[in-house]
């Protein structure tokens, strides 16, 4: 699936945060969403680019895409599969 086809239902900007708060913020955001909705996470902490997708998958969510925006910034798209 190409990026422009996925429309996020909610976006969070957690640039400037480090672990574990990157995942904490992302988890809090996804908890408030409906199943099937997509969360866009804008992140600049290198560890989090690996860790957020891994933790999201461990919690039963689907990681749709991880893409580099520019030198520092990444976007992670996660679809909520379970509460």
């Amino acid at each position, binding site marked *: 699936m190409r990026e422009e086809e996925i429309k996020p239902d909610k976006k969070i900007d957690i640039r400037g945060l480090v672990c*574990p*708060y990157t995942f904490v913020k992302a*988890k809090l955001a996804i908890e408030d969403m409906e199943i099937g909705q997509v969360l866009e996470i804008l992140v600049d902490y290198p560890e989090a680019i690996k860790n957020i997708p891994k933790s999201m998958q461990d919690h039963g969510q689907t990681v749709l895409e991880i893409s580099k925006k520019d030198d520092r910034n990444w976007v992670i798209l996660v679809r909520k599969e379970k509460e």
Partner: protein
Amino acid sequence: MEFTDEQVQRYSRHIILPEVGGKGQKKLLASKVFLVGAGGLGCPVGYYLTAAGVGTIGIVDNDEVELSNLQRQIAHGTDRLGMPKVESAKKTFQNLNPDVNIIALRGRLTKDNILDIINDYDVVVDGSDNFPTRYLVNDACVMLKKPLVSGAILRFEGQVTTVLPGEGHCYRCLFEAPPPPGLVPSCQEAGVLGVLPGVIGALQATEVLKILLGKGQPLKNSLLIYNALSVSFRKVKVPRNPDCPICGAHPTITALQDYDQGYCQLGG
């Protein structure tokens, strides 16, 4: 409610647990737990529930901090000698977590005041040091259908059990009536290893959090016995007694009663 940045940090290790999460943490912050006793068991239970962010914690105790308490009652301190235990505990807990509203009640629970006092709370924790209070608290919780997490300690052994009225056993299903005062260890026999209430209190606090979160299996219909010397945990089945005088089909106890306080205040 929305979490503040401080709360996101403070509770982050809860929030990342699938079984707790932001929703569970909000449940805890909206919960009310009542502690009977601010002694050996009440201190660690209150400490951990405060750290966990249980929003309202009520504590009742009639005693003042004495030097002999400090071997095990970790919420108090040498600079608190003579201070009411509930005041001392409140100070310690408020300092640990200002999110928590600590309601300190100096006094004794009696058949006349207990129902009003505990009625507002979600879970009751018994950390009392005497049989009269233990039975009074059990009976009141059964009457109000309130979950009760009961703990007891003596020497190197401790017990925990969780009473879910209507669903499982109660304390009287286990021991129908208080033992006569002569059969209870006297003060000079009632030693306790100082760390023991820490172990048992931590187990009680765990039970409370599980009940509030609705996760896991509570110690319903069972009694957990910990022995520090042999390092053993035994889980003994405690079936509900259909003829229990308070929670049975035809209860014979229909009003609360105060027993004689003719016991040594052990353990607490």
